[in-house]
């Protein structure tokens, strides 16, 4: 039970991080039709910029400043490069961001080096947020902060006590992602800015005729999307590891999220990222293979089959490819994605 709860929370927090990333991507895609290939690069940039700021003035200013810096860089890129390419169509736009991802990767390695940097969360976020104590006598208990050692040690050999701490950084990740989700939703549906943004998508001429500067709206949206990626980068970089490969590790997963959720659907991206986060986290914890399953139903494979690596693969080993399998299944059975509305 405590394993389930902790895995569920871990999965949700990872899913929410994915959502933070894919929300920026979805925002840019649904607004401008541009698939930002460099989105994961902005995520990496956010982590590195926050690392540098954190070394100077501390983590909390970095949490605010780094997304702003990344957002400004994103807006600058839109203003100087993407806008020029806009007239050639969507594929060159995508290719521009593809080229940018190469350049950002090289520049990051140039400035911060090719190995991982030590980007630690602040002391207030280190250690567990709460601990689940499961005792075979007293049942399940929740304790804020770390549980005292005495509680985790069973006094009697017959009593089984398991303590599962939940890291504070992951809790923080969930809080920030949820706050971001709510504020994004409020901004888009409840404010005049959101109204202009949404109508600039469907009726750019009309919005322009009403006196709004549509190219500037696009620039701001691109900057905002990049800033969201930067924010995710600060949190992801301090929770996991800040290294030049971090863009590649999330890069393709967030595309899977966007396709599975339905292109351009923010709610779909939310559902898909939670699903993928939970599936992947649970898969890592399951140590069974096809072979074990076969033995379970009473079939004894021969020695040659038993040594075949495909049959011996455990679910935890295939965990990294599960999102892509999920993608293929979704495409076969529901090509427009979970909550998507348009096809093709």
């Amino acid at each position, binding site marked *: 039970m405590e394993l389930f709860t902790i895995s569920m929370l871990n999965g949700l927090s990872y899913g929410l991080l994915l959502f933070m990333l894919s929300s920026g991507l979805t925002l840019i895609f649904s607004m401008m039709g541009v698939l930002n290939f460099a989105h994961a690069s902005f995520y990496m940039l956010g982590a590195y910029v926050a690392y540098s700021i954190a070394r100077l003035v501390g983590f909390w200013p970095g949490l605010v400043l780094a997304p702003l810096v990344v957002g400004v860089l994103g807006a600058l890129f839109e203003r100087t490069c993407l806008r020029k390419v806009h007239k050639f169509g969507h594929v060159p736009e995508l290719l521009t961001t*593809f*080229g940018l991802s190469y350049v950002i990767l090289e520049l990051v*390695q140039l400035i911060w080096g090719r190995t991982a940097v030590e980007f630690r969360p602040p002391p207030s976020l280190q250690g567990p947020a709460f601990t689940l104590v499961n005792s075979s006598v007293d049942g399940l208990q929740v304790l804020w902060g770390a549980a005292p050692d005495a509680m985790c040690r069973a006094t009697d050999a017959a009593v089984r006590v398991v303590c599962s701490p939940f890291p504070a950084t992951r809790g923080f990740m969930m809080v920030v992602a949820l706050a971001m989700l709510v504020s994004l939703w409020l901004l888009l549906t409840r404010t005049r800015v959101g109204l202009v943004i949404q109508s600039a998508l469907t009726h750019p001429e009309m919005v322009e005729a009403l006196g709004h500067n549509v190219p500037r709206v696009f620039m701001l949206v691109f900057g905002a999307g990049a800033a969201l990626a930067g924010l995710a980068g600060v949190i992801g970089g301090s929770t996991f590891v800040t290294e030049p490969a971090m863009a590649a590790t999330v890069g393709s997963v967030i595309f899977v999220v966007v396709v599975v959720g339905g292109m351009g659907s923010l709610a779909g991206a939310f559902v898909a990222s939670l699903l993928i986060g939970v599936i992947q986290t649970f898969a890592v914890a399951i140590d069974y293979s096809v072979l074990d399953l076969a033995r379970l139903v009473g079939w004894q494979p021969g020695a040659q089959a038993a040594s075949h690596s*495909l049959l011996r693969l455990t679910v935890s080993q295939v965990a990294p490819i599960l999102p892509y399998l999920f993608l*293929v299944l979704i495409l076969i059975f529901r090509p427009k994605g979970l909550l998507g509305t348009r096809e093709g």
Partner: protein
Amino acid sequence: MGQRQFHFRPLNVGRWFVWGAFALLLLLAPKLFSSSLAVTILSQIGIAVVACLSYNMLLGQGGMLSFGHAVYTGLGAYVAIHALNAISGGSLPIPVSLLPLVGGLAGMFFAVLLGYVTTRKSGTPFAMITLGLAELVFAMSLMVPEFFGGEAGVAGNRVVGKPVWGISFGPQIQVYYLLAFYTFVCTALMFAFTHTPLGRMLNAVRDNAERVAFIGYNPQRVRYTAFIIAGFFAGVSGGMYALNFEIATAEVVGAARSGAYLLFTFLGGATFFFGPIIGAVLMVLATVLLSEFTKAWLLYLGLVFLFMVMYAPGGIASLLMMNLRVAAFGHLRNLWTAYLALGGTGLVVLAGAGAIVEMIYHLQLDAALGPTVKYLGATLNIERFDTWFGAVFVMLVGLALFELSRRQFNHQWAEVQTDIERTLRRREDAL
């Protein structure tokens, strides 16, 4: 029309001339560049040409931006290397020279399998799905060591059995001629494909899929069929790779290779058939030679790519064709001074910027090797202020001059273009 076209039936002289020159080039290239490094590079260029052309069947002709083309070349290479081992083991009675075909069939098989899922969508979703599938295959390659050989990959030996007519495929030059033969045949076949009804439909699907559906074709099926054919040629290229390198590692299905196909096909020019050939040559030269010269080559590559997308989205091929048009109307002599100015000032900018980049890379990566960098025959000292100042100064002066000559060039170019338009209109009126 008053255009001069050499079109003598039943022989199309122009076409025979172009293909004859291509065949001659493939035949004579190793005679001109006979060092062993050159022959190795030429062999790799042949492989890259087939891969880039097959990629352009998707990108340029079908409007399908794939991020996973290395899946088909790579799986083709894997199957070919296993076939090679089967030939050595005596269980597969085919000559080694047919290995590329084995790779091709494998590429086709995987394109049939995976293409069914990927080609259900077009445009941006297609791009993302191919990316996802490429990740899937790459992750699988490390999970199934039986087939993929794990980290070390699968190795083979192409020298099998008795030599036929003295050809054992031991020396690189013999392999080169086999690869050149395949390159020529594949290029010809792919060019022929552009003239088939299917090739034309593919262009129509790229330009307006809705309209294609309206006149009764299924755009999805056209894309799928083209995808399978592109997969076949990609597999042939993979088989050629296996034959050339005698090894296939997980890297051949990796994302970096797919990215390289995309990058260089685009740089060469996706809008013309011969564009990817230029791209393939550049790809081999950049990955083999440029990476030896400078550590910053990926940065240069990314920047060149960005500038190309922004200022010349048709790639090098379109730049060539534009200037051929200018030359055909006899205007190139008006422009050559402007080109000289552009090229000269551009080189100054590049020299300055390159010096800065090289010094920064040196500072970051091998500062332990001492404070000096060798750059274009000169020795730069990164600890002295005047080197930095000099580099920045050269770059800024170059930029200012470049901007001046660029304005002059733009002016002249526009003049030449209006002149060409006027000539064309006059010719039309004369008819």
